[in-house]
């Protein structure tokens, strides 16, 4: 969703001033940082604004992601001043939200596989992972499936597979996981709400 940028970001210019002064031997790092911020504000003004909700505690603060229209990349995330709960403010974690984007070099970007008794991860593709996981799920489920319990009651369950998580994914994803686990007959189903 695109929303109108707030009015206070109307600052412009004043970026060029610091360049000439640098030849005088002054420490201009703070000025440059300031100039970078101003240039970022210019970029924010023309960026695509997309709203999201914070992914940490459960207050549900609103954030605005600024997306560069040319590259499609997020280059700034800040509190949503239109949001009735946080009114633009954020805590330390929310304020650092940008470090969750792909700019963080620790983000996982490849399917990783570790073979039995292996000492390292190997990169794989989705086809490998999906077909291998499906095979393992089916074999484990079929081998350990409990049709009837000790009393002879029909229970149609599989106790050999556990599913955990997650309260930091979206509702629609939660529902998918909840339903998937039941259709497989799992009973060890749990997530962070328990802890």
């Amino acid at each position: 969703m695109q929303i109108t940028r707030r009015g206070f970001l109307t600052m412009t210019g004043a970026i060029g001033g610091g360049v000439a002064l640098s030849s005088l031997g002054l420490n201009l790092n703070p000025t440059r940082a300031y100039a970078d911020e101003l240039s970022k504000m210019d970029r924010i003004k023309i960026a695509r604004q997309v709203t999201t909700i914070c992914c940490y505690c459960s207050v549900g603060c609103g954030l605005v992601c600024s997306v560069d229209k040319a590259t499609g990349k997020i280059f700034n995330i800040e509190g949503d001043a239109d949001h009735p709960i946080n009114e633009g403010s954020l805590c330390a974690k929310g304020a650092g939200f940008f470090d969750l984007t792909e700019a963080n070099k620790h983000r996982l970007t490849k399917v990783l596989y570790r073979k039995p008794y292996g000492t390292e991860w190997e990169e794989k593709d989705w086809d490998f992972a999906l077909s291998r996981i499906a095979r393992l799920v089916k074999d484990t489920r079929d081998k350990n499936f409990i049709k009837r319990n000790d009393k002879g009651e029909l229970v149609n369950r599989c106790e050999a597979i556990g599913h955990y998580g997650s309260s930091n994914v979206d509702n629609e994803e939660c529902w998918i996981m909840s339903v998937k686990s039941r259709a497989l007959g799992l009973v060890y189903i749990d997530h962070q709400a328990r802890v």
Partner: protein
Amino acid sequence: MTNHYCDLKNADVILIMGSNAAEHHPIAFKWILRAKEKGATIIHVDPRYTRTSARCDFHVPLRSGTDIAFLGGMIHYILENKKFFKDYVLNYTNASFIVDNGFNFKDGLFSGYDPKKRKYDKATWVFDKDGKGIPQRDMSLTHPRSVFQLLKKHYSRYTLDKVSSITGVSKENLLKVYEIYASTGVPDKAGTECYALGWTHHTTGSQNIRTMSIIQLLLGNMGIAGGGINALRGEPNVQGSTDHCILYGNLPGYLKMLSASLDTLDKYLHKYTPESKDPQSANYYSNYPKFFVSFLKSLWEDKATKENAFGYSWLPKMDDGKHYSTMHMFDAMYAGKVKGYFCVGADTAVSTPNSNKVRKAMENLDWLVGENIFNNETYEFWRGPGVDPTKIKTECFLLPAAATMEKEGSQSNSGRWVQWKYKAAEAPGDALPVGEIEIKIMAAVKKLYEKEGGPNAEAIVNLKWDYLDSKGHFDVIKVAKRINGVFLEDTVIEDKAKGTKTEFKKGQLVPGFGNLQADGKTACGNWCISGSYTADGINKMASRGKEDPTGLGLFPNWSFAWPVNRRILYNRASCDVNGKPYNPKRKLLEWTGDKWVGDVPDGPWPPQADRAKGKYPFIMQRDGLGALFGPGMAEGPFPEHYEPLEGPLEKNLLSSQRMNPAAEIFKSDMDKVANASEKFPYVCTTYSCTEHWCTGALTRWQAWLLEMQPELYVEIGEKLAREKGIKNGERIKVSSIRGEAPCIAMVTKRFKPFTVDGKEVHQVGMPFNYGWLFPKDSGSDSTNMLTPTVGDANTFCPEYKAFMVNVEKL
């Protein structure tokens, strides 16, 4: 939360107990401070002085694990000094109900206890009924078996001296809190309570909250603006993940999971559809069959028919009386019974108690599937500290997931606001939304069953699973609409009260759960969330209207709040029996003679003074009234103080039952316990910090946050540090009978020793945000190496907040 975040500003007194809101919910705390600016008194009760304490009117330290004693003393104070809101207690709670003659309480145990099973037979925890089957009442509240008198008797034991001796809180401080909080037991004052993990992380966690619920009912604080019980929950969508019940005991919408003895749909529906003979009780759960059958239809649609009981037999059934929570799962995994494990967006090798046991258990896995945006200690357990990867058989997958702003969908906050969020950018590399990964895994499994068959294959091959769009990606709108519910046939809905008939077409979305059908005409993935779309397909979760017609901060046009956009639960209790607001200055709702005006009311019926059509306000309770007597709980209808599994005392000062008699005891060789032990003499509690989140599995990977809070520490009071010769900043060892956690000593004024049963007891505290994987060089590991495998008797929420340790110089 019964209420919601912006509503905190409406309170006159806020008790923060079991939470450090300023540091863990800073933006929630803004609304608490807004109440303070308007003159509210803010009280913090917590073992440790924190930044929350610093901004409150005053702080009262109490020993971890003694909240019921503290609050039980408050109930005693309220009843003895007649501070309760009589009109409310009489009309809106079960105070006047007469309890069965066989019910009793002796020396810490209620009637019906079986020590071998550690369970109660609840046969006597019931009400006497009249000839029509309606609970008998004594409106004078003097009958010795009335709930009111039993409550009074039960808490008469919680005297100031006794409570002070148990909790370590001075009598002056106890009285100060009791007096100020009890001052809200009048029509025009509101008191609210904010808790978090500080209340749930105990063997008596649920009863901590129930004790406060009793106080709120006695003071008339439930269902009003600025009142209620407010859980400040700790994960962004933990409300939603709970609503969708990724939980062993429930199906989406808190429907009950099936048990083996309920072998037919009829038996199941009979058991879980409550019946009330009282015409004034709305007993809303009498609609249970509509919600449940619509859920079954959402799974299997036209394959679920009346003839096959809508696929009832395809769902898994638990053994009666058996539990399958996280701790049970790892216990079974440790015993080699769990072979495969999906761990999605979580770090259970750090977050689960007794981490040494958990990590050992994982070595028994044949396979592990992880889905996350960063790596963590769970996914790398095979090369954790002291583990030789060449000896670990487990086949492991780590699947890259999209971060929250890289996908569209909804998230529910603690105030039940279901807020829509949008996709801002593509996920990096091969990363996909978790929803898409899960759909694709299940689609691949489904394909195998279609080809090869297998046990109970119908449940899988018949599953409606068309949630990818034409490009093969996650169709989140389609799932959201399935959750909301849809008419599967042309359906005419008759409203007898209004005398109207409305026709809905096949394929049209249901406007709300009131339209769901028990005959298979509707499919609904989660009845609670039904109404998040309009019948015309408008997504109400995406609403961004800022109107505030009541001035109370309800923001009815911002997002969608379940149920049916109701912002404050039980809101009819904010008015007297004639529907007039108790507090005209904070008018949440009012009956105007033919309708309710204000918040979305808890049902359209007239107020209860209308004996013909009126209904009681607590519509989800079978009897329609707030439950001072709560027979649903595992350990008794009235909360009772028990010591934690591990504590400093050999005996409970209130009874011969030292710990919760209904809490399950885990018995593996790695489940050691050291109560009142000289080797582990200090009470320990755990908590988070502002800069990290949960296990730190997301935040430790972020340089800015890590720099602020780089590694594990233990907070130690100055007196204990002096005794042990420990200096601030020194590297030391904290140990329990289960494990060790090397960390930095933070010597602080924030912890002071308690006087408990006449003796000095020290308490220390540690954050739970660290693990071994990252940062690499810290030497930190999980605080849960120390914690025991034990939990609440109702929920199995682990006891992270009170256990015993030793602290030593290295």
